[in-house]
């Protein structure tokens, strides 16, 4: 390129940016970048969330987080109870102009459930799918399963023709070490299409004028820029270089609130923070494990002053929890949400009852890059346990280091946050955390507990198609979890987004996922 050409090019750019002023631009400063343009490439909810603006599922969550039709217009369960028939929406086109048909759905489901797909766990009950006619698809499951729609909200539909053309019918396999076309390119049906992407610098989405739905947003352009450093992100918001962030740092909220042009949107996340116990015969140190006794677990529960943590560590922004799921999650009920209250004396008596030796040492495993203020609340809780005569050994490190210790039982007591995503149902923690570790169940049952009665309740809920009966079963299971103190619920953690005055409408979702097709930017 000669210098002259460069001049011309930059002149053209200036002209373009002059035009851009007439557009409504949402400048989104996120705390991290998306992994790739392929939602199936990496098991990462943020990437899936952002790409939901480009790709859509058969069904979606509406503004109240209720499931509504998206690419499927309607559906029914067939006689055999395990096959679901979806009638697809007519007149939908992909960004490249290809029409949306049943073949696309089947190809997408096969792609996400492929052996090498890191996301195949998102469709746990899926067996196969088949084209009935160009606008009808049958999905066959491995049994009666009530939560298929919840799972499908997160399964993005690709264009089969486009995948064939670019040899992308299978997800990128990291093991084979080859790149995929879909990593760099996207072609969905959603409200926005990808205009350009520079990893870690900027990804630009432009409005899709041919979107099948009536837009509730007025955004022409979304510029997603990752700004990893929290202080820089705050500065960029204050100086107006970004007009939206989905991660306003807790310590900077007073400063942002004091600024006249910034609005802070605060809420309580769906994520419930819990403490889990080991149920093995011995502790990591080889000593006998007293936490198999309910009394010992209750002692640790009674020793924690939840109010103090809420007020001091979480700066009054969290919601103290008594149940292991948040109130908006189906399966929750208010009577589960009670806390016993801190009582160190009672805790000591319970320790004595359980025969826990004075000064018992055990590992307390926390993440340095996990939950909101995790390091601080872990320190506070460790101190509270020391007060009743125990010697917890606090072990704080990044997730990548701690997770192997947790899964291999090389630690004792640990923290865990669970938002029930993407299912948004109490069945999610019941199956993944509280069920015994058999087959695909209990993946996060790190303590190794097993309650056959609880498993029976969960299994019954997992194959119950009647919603009311299912939620009742889930509620019973949650009650058992609470009575047995399998885990100690602490709180639902705070979340905060921030926008400048330019953004006139930005609904805050309790699952902490921006859905910008509901947002408005001033003209």
């Amino acid at each position, binding site marked *: 390129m000669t210098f002259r050409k460069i001049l011309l090019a930059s002149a053209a750019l200036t002209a373009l940016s002059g035009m851009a002023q007439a557009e409504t631009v949402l400048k989104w400063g996120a705390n991290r970048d998306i992994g790739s343009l392929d939602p199936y490439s*990496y098991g990462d909810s943020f990437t899936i969330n952002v790409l939901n603006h480009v790709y859509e599922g058969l069904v979606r969550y509406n503004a109240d987080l209720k499931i509504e039709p998206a690419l499927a217009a309607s559906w029914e369960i067939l006689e055999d109870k395990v096959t679901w028939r979806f009638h697809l929406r007519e007149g939908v086109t992909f960004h490249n102009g290809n029409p949306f048909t049943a073949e696309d759905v089947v190809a997408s489901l096969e792609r996400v459930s492929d052996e090498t797909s890191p996301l195949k766990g998102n469709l746990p009950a899926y067996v196969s799918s088949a084209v009935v006619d160009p606008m009808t698809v049958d999905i066959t499951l491995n049994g009666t399963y009530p939560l298929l729609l919840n799972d499908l909200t997160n399964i993005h539909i690709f264009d089969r023709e486009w995948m064939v053309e670019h040899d992308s019918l299978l997800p990128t396999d990291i093991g084979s070490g080859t790149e995929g076309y879909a990593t760099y390119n996207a072609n969905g049906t959603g409200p926005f299409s990808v205009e350009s992407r520079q990893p*870690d610098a900027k990804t630009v989405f432009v409005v899709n004028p041919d979107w099948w739905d009536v837009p509730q947003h007025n955004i022409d352009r979304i510029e997603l*820029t990752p700004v990893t450093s929290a202080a*820089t992100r705050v500065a960029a918001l204050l100086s107006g270089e970004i007009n939206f962030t989905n991660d306003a740092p807790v310590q900077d909220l007073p400063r942002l609130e004091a600024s006249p042009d910034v609005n802070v949107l605060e809420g309580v996340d769906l994520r419930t923070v819990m403490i889990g116990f080991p149920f093995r015969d011995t502790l990591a140190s080889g000593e006998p494990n007293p936490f198999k006794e309910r009394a010992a677990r209750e002692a640790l529960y009674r020793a924690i002053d939840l109010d103090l943590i809420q007020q001091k560590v979480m700066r009054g922004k969290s919601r103290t929890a008594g149940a292991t799921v948040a109130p908006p999650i189906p399966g929750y009920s208010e009577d589960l949400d009670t806390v016993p209250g801190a009582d160190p004396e009672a805790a000591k008596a319970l320790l004595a009852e359980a025969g826990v030796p004075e000064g018992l040492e055990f590992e307390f495993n926390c993440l340095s890059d996990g939950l909101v203020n995790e390091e601080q609340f872990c320190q506070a809780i460790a101190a509270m346990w020391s007060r009743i005569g125990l010697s917890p050994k606090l072990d704080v490190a990044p997730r990548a280091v701690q997770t192997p210790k947790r*899964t291999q039982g090389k630690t004792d007591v640990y923290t865990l946050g669970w938002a029930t995503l993407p299912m948004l149902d109490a069945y999610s923690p019941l199956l993944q955390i509280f069920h015994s570790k058999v087959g695909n169940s209990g993946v996060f049952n790190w303590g190794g507990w097993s309650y056959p009665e609880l498993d029976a309740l969960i299994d019954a809920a997992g194959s119950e198609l009647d919603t009311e009966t299912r939620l009742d079963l889930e509620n019973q299971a949650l009650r058992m979890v609470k009575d047995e103190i399998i885990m100690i619920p602490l709180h639902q953690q705070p979340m905060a987004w921030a926008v400048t005055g330019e953004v006139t409408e930005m609904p805050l979702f309790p699952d902490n996922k921006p859905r910008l097709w509901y947002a408005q930017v001033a003209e």
Partner: protein
Amino acid sequence: MLAFLIKRTANAVFVMLAVALLAFVIFRFFGDPVEMMVNEQATQADRAELRERLGLNDSFATQYLRFVTNAVQGDFGISYRNQQDVMVLIGDRFPATFELVLVATAISLVVGIPLGVITAVHRNSRLANLLQLGSIVGVSLPSFVVGIMLILAFSVSLGWLPAFGRGETVDIGWWSTGLLTPSGRQALVLPAISLSTFQITLVMRLVRAEMLEVLRSDYVKFARARGVPAPRLHWVHALRNCLMPVITLTGMQIGNLIAFALVTETVFQWPGMGLLFIQAVTFVDIPVMAAYLMLVSFIFVLLNTLVDIAYAWVDPRLRDDTAKAGGANG
């Protein structure tokens, strides 16, 4: 000279292999990449299977050997997180880091050399003492603090310069440059200043020390006696003789700056190699970490080897084969 070259090159290769080995030892403490790659609903069996497919279950020696064999062929695999070819990924980021380092180096020379001369010539004056004091601050302030303060002053309060990013870039072949657009140049100012603060102090102190030495030398005294005007004496005759070590140091420091730019890049969200590395660490993206460490150590080794060879070329006493002869003569 040939023997010397072979020896230096062999040393360099050995250093690279050692770096790769150390890197691999360290990676084992970063944790398990698979836990970061799969989603919450993946089963234990899925995780184990992925681990097997990535070759993470192989013995340490096998993994190391495989890495070295591939690396020699220039194949570092694909990134776990971005699913992109690692060399392409790093190649995309290199121009950003290199431009930042280059501009920071230029700033450090343009500012550091005059300050060094002034503090040497006006030794013990109030200005010189103040500059000396300032230089201590420059050395001791961590660069992320400098960066944040610059952002607060010039982006938030004054609103003159962008707080993050690289602005518009223009592609010239595979090289992307921000130097040709106004927004690119604006975006470069704060990170370059932040990266150069330490370097300015270093250059200034080096020039000062060298100048003090030179000012005592006979030829300066003679020149002064001959009536050469003071500014010409200081800025031309004396300074020219101080520059050799400054140039050497600057050359060597480029490697350092590339390596330490990662702090500046994190603060300013500068899309360079350092930022890539930091994110790779967070996600235990072993292929990217390995390639980055190899590349940075390669730059270090290359610079050192070149400097050694240049010295040997300039100063025959440093060559092995002539060293013996020199010894006989001496």
